[in-house]
């Protein structure tokens, strides 16, 4: 019993320390998770073949998306023979015709202007590819994985490598 007050004080100190760490930690975690998501998108694009063979592959997203800053850090990176250009648009109504890849965040692919030939959409959520999205990103248990709607990709004449398809959590053929 002599130790109880000491233990109690120590326990409170531990809880106080944990609580005090949380805000900084959450910001850090959010940035880390944004980086992981951005790098997964970057890698998916490395394993995709687009019908247009221009020098740059244009990835568009809204400037207010959570990972917009993380995606912007990838601007100018090499995707093999092409370069990734990250374009921030204020809203989808500004036009997406020049984009090869549209990252919609948690938005619905159906809310976008109709995808043109050679254009794919990437978005968040397990049902994104069920609603005409091409590549979905799923956050589950602190980890991110991706799903592919190969039917929509075929319609746009965009091909994903079999290696990428093997790693996908779900594929709609």
């Amino acid at each position, binding site marked *: 019993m002599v130790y109880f007050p000491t233990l109690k004080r120590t326990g409170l100190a531990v809880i106080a320390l944990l609580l005090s760490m949380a805000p900084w930690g959450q910001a850090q975690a959010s940035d880390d998770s944004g980086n992981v998501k951005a790098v997964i998108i970057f890698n998916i694009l490395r394993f995709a073949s687009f019908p247009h063979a221009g020098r740059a592959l244009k990835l568009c997203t809204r400037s207010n998306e959570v990972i917009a800053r*993380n995606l912007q850090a990838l601007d100018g990176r090499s995707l093999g023979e092409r370069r990734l250009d990250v374009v921030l648009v204020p809203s989808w109504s500004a036009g997406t015709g020049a984009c090869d890849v549209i990252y919609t965040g948690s938005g619905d692919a159906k809310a976008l202007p109709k995808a043109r030939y050679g254009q794919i959409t990437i978005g968040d959520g397990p049902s994104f590819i069920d609603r005409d999205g091409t590549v979905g990103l799923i956050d589950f248990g602190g980890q991110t*994985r991706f799903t592919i709607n190969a039917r929509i990709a075929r319609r746009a004449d965009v091909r994903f490598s079999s290696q990428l398809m093997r*790693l996908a959590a779900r594929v709609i053929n």
Partner: protein
Amino acid sequence: MDELLGMSLEDVLSQEVTSVAKKAQHVGDAPAAVYVISQDQISRSGALALTDLLRRVPGLEVFQLQGSATSVSARGFSSRFAANLLVMVDGAAIYNTPISGMFWDQAIFPLQDIERIEVIRGPGGTLWGSNSINGVINIITKQSVDTQGLHLDVKAGARDMRGEFGYGAQLSPVLGVRVYGTYRHSKGLQFADGRDIGDKWNGALGGVRLDYAPSDSDSVVVLGELSGGRFTESRTDVAVTPSGPAEIVIGPRNTFDSEHVLARWKHIFAPDFELTGQVYFNRLYRVEVDAGVSRDLYDASLEGHWRISRMHDVNFGISGRISHDAVGSGGLVSFPSGANTDRWLTGYLQDEIALVPDTFTLTAGSKFELNNFNGFHVQPSLRMFYRHSEGLAFWGAVSRATRTSLLQQREMNANFFLWQRDKRRPQPVLTQVISFGNKHLRNESLLAFEAGMRASLSRSWSLDLSGFRNLYDKLVTADLISSEPLYVAPYTDPVGIRTLNTFRNNAKGRSWGFELLLSGQITPQWKTELSYSYLDLRIDTKTVAALSSVPSIPRDASSRHQVRVSTSYDIGDKVSLEGALHYVSRSFDAVRPGFADLDLRAAYRPLTNVEIAVSGSHLLKPRHLEYYTNYIPLPFGYVPRVVTLETRVRF
């Protein structure tokens, strides 16, 4: 972000090593000899069994000795159950106490559901506890949300068949489920002349896994699995013939069934502090060597990871385990007390101290273990990691690890015949071995010194070198109590010798060796690995006279050299070719000659969700001997050439 960009997509999604430090870390930063079998390597292999995948790990010895048994060991001590290697699935130990090792044949969960296999060569006792004295194998399976849709994989050949299915679904944004199953059939091994020994194996497994993640801070896994099967054991025995006793091979038919449930909850209290609680229950019944073994295993653990500051990263945990074993007595073994219950209480604490952040790290910790048969013992280790530059890193470690005495050596009595042979005695000598358990056996212990280096030779080539010096103490020996001429009716003259033995801690051992791995890409489509391992192992028993004291796990079946070259080549997106050439030098006792092995696989994908492949294993000879030991009644079983056709479909 640059670090993430330097990793492959598979690495970003999953490639993290948790077995070295019980926390996610990149392979290149682990202060241990670690090799990760990736999802891509598993997918490209034509493996018919989990053990086939392990053959690619540098320094690991994988030998098939019966249709139902494969020996897997690290850094020597190859034996029927490889008691020095801890094997886990998702962190739950599936090591079996009464038989002191793994029933590898029962590990038939779908290979396509494995995310990665982490193999650590060297002691892992500080975090994982006893019996990880020479290594740890941690098989990590995919979450259910990673395997959505229906997967089918069927491999069939003249000798083997394996079918797997899995169906995964995300029921809601926070709930995923997978049901899965496997069926496997094997005709087993052959005699030297090509006749089948008859050690067939048939088994099936089914399971369901639920993943629940109500928030980014909580994840829950609940898993239930059951399996069962029947197999024919191959064993030597004695036949009475007019010209004298003769060696024969008999094939008793055996069965197994097993059920287990696992539940794990992980909660992230803060980005730098998390706790994981896990409970595990396994019920096993298996008949082998004329005895039925039934076991109820209860295991519960609570583990934490706390990054206290930029300098201190702490892991801690406590766990309890109860194993209740009942062994029915048969012709070969008897268990006087009929049943036994072992209890363990363990705790560990380890601090990773970043003395120079991202450059020099010191890791110190210890496991504390209390059990009801060997008492209290500690397993400390000190590890250091030094990153000299982005492409060059060094690590070193000093560890103490223990192996608790095995139930079969403590409690069981055995009575069987051996036909013992070696290179000096081509004609086998008939020996009746009668052995008695010894309740006073102590822990075997190991003091291990390890060092390693990892270097990036270029953007696409890397070199991994690990060396070790192991000093073993109190190794268990089978000690001769007395011997006398063996009389077998109806013969009037002695036909061999009868020995009475018991187990003691009468041997010391020392080994050294190294493992070298060169891996890289010749072109982006052409990946290659070259590995070489060397082992020098000596065991000294206290008594001098031949047969008076032999190590219970002798060095005999292990080999000094192993070389492996494996390569994979993609032709476009539709065709993949794989090949592996593996050489194993002769066994230390020279009974098993050296052998070379060639595996080839060609896969064609006519559609993005369909793959058809043809695989050939052990192609260089019609059959070859991988394992033989004089200390169990085992016939010379030759591993035959196997060709299979495989179809994979994903909907």
